[in-house]
């Protein structure tokens, strides 16, 4: 008898517990339906630029909490850089699909003076800051002066010795860049600098300003950020006309598989490049899902610390290069959706300037026997662990790869496995993406598997290897020469090329690429520029530029 009573009580408690959960589930289910449709989230009061119903476009990307610390486009850390493309503009936009410059805050391609030492840009008269202030030449001058005053912000050394001398406003609507020497790459470099509003930035220290509500000239206006998304709304006053979507939501993910599943489910319509590659074939089974591919400026590589004992020997670096089967890596690791990297480093984006012969050159194809042979010839002998050793230096290195990125880790496993076949030992360590960059800059590493995203200019891309872009181990590099690579020959060629005629440059670039392929400051793997997007609900993507870039999304409209 008493047992029955207990059971009644038990049931009652169970029922209460169930009831605690049920309303959550029930309510939320109702909630779920409309939010599926994407547009329901936007308040009804908001009117679209076209005057119709609000339209919300959802873009997905991995945005870590530490990347939401500031929205200051001057800074390289603590922010989510792709966001600036939607909010800010440079004078020019480098289109990685076509490898050309598109005027943004400039109204034309700019004009060079006779002597090539002064470059004048006419400004876009229709541009306006999101807060209603007028965009003027002073904003441009302020932005570049800030780089001059704070060398730490001048990432590409625009104010270096043979480069900028002065930046001056010419009336309200033009700016002149005066140079110390001929510097034909200037326009390309200009595309790397987002112009910031003087009226907001001049009151702050640009090196520490967090810029929590960014005000730009871009097609989208920053609205809010939370743990799930960054929300931008269409800029009705955008100089190329208001975007056709009302709202651009950048949905935050923690990893690429989650993002890819969302893409497959249709919760998001695109990503700026993040995608779990193995899912690609399945994703493309839906004819509405597209993957735009282009060589891109992010060069994935095994970054080698040229200062470390063992790795300072070109023969060892050569062996690393010969051990890696790039085709296998692209095919198995990236599902064929990446472009095999050129041992001369320059991305295919730079077209004719790339030394294509290096790709086919048998000297740079995977060759385990040759690697072993080279090491043995150089006096290395295998020790009991099967690892080469010379003068007490064992070819055993730490190998950093991104944490929480199993696909990258799998590639790391493939690569380190190949390295072990040429008698190079590795111990794999993990670090987050931001930390990989940080240790690369500080030099506290042997090998890192990561991408080097180069500026949109062949000169700048190759200047990654200039000795002025590096620093001793323990100090942060001023540029992207994380490799601590120094080569007088390459320095000389680069300096010569920086002011040379186009024809001369092409020749010099070939020489530089050949030398890079030969001395292997870095073991190039692949380049991977991609933009997955869905045409299920939206149409009108501009695929002459990356399909999810600001320019394209300005044109996108709901079906």
């Amino acid at each position: 008898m008493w047992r029955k009573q207990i059971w009644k009580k038990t049931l009652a408690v169970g029922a209460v517990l169930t009831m605690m959960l049920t309303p959550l589930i029930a309510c939320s289910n109702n909630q779920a339906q409309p939010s599926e449709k994407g547009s329901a989230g936007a308040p009804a009061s908001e009117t679209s630029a076209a005057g119709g119903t609000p339209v919300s476009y959802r873009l997905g990307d991995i945005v870590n909490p530490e990347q939401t610390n500031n929205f200051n486009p001057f800074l390289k850390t603590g922010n989510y850089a792709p966001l600036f493309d939607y909010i800010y503009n440079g004078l020019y936009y480098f289109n990685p699909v076509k490898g050309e410059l598109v005027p943004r805050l400039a109204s034309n391609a700019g004009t060079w003076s006779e002597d090539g030492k002064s470059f004048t840009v006419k400004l876009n008269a229709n541009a306006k800051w999101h807060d209603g202030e007028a965009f003027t030449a002073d904003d441009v001058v302020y932005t570049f002066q800030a780089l001059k005053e704070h060398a730490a912000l001048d990432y590409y050394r625009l104010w270096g010795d043979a480069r900028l001398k002065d930046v001056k406003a010419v009336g309200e609507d033009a700016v002149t860049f005066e140079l110390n020497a001929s510097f034909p790459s200037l326009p390309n470099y200009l595309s790397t600098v987002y112009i910031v509003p003087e009226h907001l930035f001049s009151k702050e220290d640009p090196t520490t300003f967090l810029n929590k509500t960014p005000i730009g000239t871009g097609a989208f206006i920053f609205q809010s950020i939370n743990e799930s998304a960054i929300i931008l709304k269409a800029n009705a006053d955008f100089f190329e006309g208001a975007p056709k979507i009302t709202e651009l939501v950048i949905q935050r993910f923690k990893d690429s598989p989650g993002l890819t599943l969302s893409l497959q489910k249709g919760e998001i319509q695109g990503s700026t490049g993040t995608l779990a590659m193995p899912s690609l074939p399945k994703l493309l089974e839906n004819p509405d899902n597209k993957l735009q591919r282009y060589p891109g400026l992010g060069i994935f590589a095994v970054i080698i610390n040229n200062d470390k004992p063992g790795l300072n020997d070109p023969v060892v670096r050569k062996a690393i290069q010969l051990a890696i089967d790039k085709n296998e890596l692209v095919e198995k690791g990236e599902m064929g959706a990446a472009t095999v990297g050129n041992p001369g480093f320059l991305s295919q984006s730079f077209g004719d300037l790339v030394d294509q012969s290096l790709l086919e050159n048998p000297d740079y194809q995977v060759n385990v026997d040759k690697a072993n042979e080279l090491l043995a010839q150089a006096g290395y002998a295998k020790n009991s662990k099967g690892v080469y050793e010379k003068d007490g230096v064992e070819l055993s290195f730490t190998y950093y790869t991104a944490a929480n990125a199993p696909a990258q880790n799998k590639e790391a496993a493939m690569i380190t496995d190949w390295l072990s076949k040429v008698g190079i030992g590795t111990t794999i360590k993990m670090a987050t993406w931001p930390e990989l960059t940080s240790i690369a800059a500080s030099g506290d590493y042997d090998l890192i598997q990561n991408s080097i995203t180069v500026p949109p200019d062949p000169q700048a891309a190759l200047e990654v290897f200039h000795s002025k872009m590096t620093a001793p181990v323990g100090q942060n590099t001023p540029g992207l020469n994380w490799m601590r690579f120094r080569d007088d020959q390459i320095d000389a060629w680069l300096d010569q090329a920086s002011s040379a005629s186009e024809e001369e440059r092409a020749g010099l670039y070939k020489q530089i690429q050949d030398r890079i392929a030969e001395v292997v400051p870095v073991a190039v793997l692949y380049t991977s520029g991609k933009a997955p997007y869905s045409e299920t609900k939206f149409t009108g993507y501009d695929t002459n530029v990356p399909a999810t870039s600001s320019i394209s999304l300005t044109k996108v409209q709901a079906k």
Partner: protein
Amino acid sequence: MRNKRTLPRERSGKAKLWGGACILLIFAAVSLATAQIAPYPKNDMEFEVWLKPSAAHLLGTDSYGQDVFSQLVYGTRTSFLVGVLAGLITTIIGVLVGVTAGFYRRWVSDALMFVVDLLLIIPVMALMIILASFLPSMGLTSIVLVIGLLSWLYMARSIRSQTLSERQRGYVEAARVAGMSDLSIMLREILPNLYPIILANLVSVTTHAVLAEAGLSFLGIGDPKNVSWGTILALAHANNAIMYDAWWWIVPPGLATALFCFGFILIGNGSLERFRHKRGASQQT
């Protein structure tokens, strides 16, 4: 009444023991003979990707064209080694600390238990990640050490309380009167009486070690060159096996882990039941 209940219990204890032993023996055999059992070499990526299970590939292939069954077999060795070795390390430390703290009163006990209580307030998983990210490498040895050295706290507590209660019993006093040293009392008198509780703990720390290894691998802390059930799961998750309905990639590693730990739990439980039964019987007579 009592007989009715103990008889099936003894039988069930025996059955559990046998069942558990069988499961573990199978896994042990697999991990010893990986090369013979696995149809293809470790990390071999030469097959077509996303193949469904078939005669050639019992559990299909993954997104890299690796035979999932082979990977699973190689993973068995890792998980087995980590479980057994880390479990042993944990047990040894746990017993040493527990018995010492339980046998000696006053400051030895207090000091040891203070250390245990102190360490207990550190989140173990976080500590493991910290160690893993600072250790020079995360090979099998490091994983075993990290897990083994950080998991003994609860065990030490439970052994200590059991030792305390054993200490109250007459035989310890008798041994002391007979002039036995502390050490031999601990080893010869107390320890044998702790076997069941040690065994129960051994089982749970081993299970814990296997699961911790899977967790660390899943978080991407382990050595990616090492195949373990955790790394297989991590890869399946990261490569969206679900989009391809590739259950053969997600389900087997989880089930293998579960079955393996289940084997340990069966043995632990079975032997506890048998022990209780015997002890009950001897007390009655």
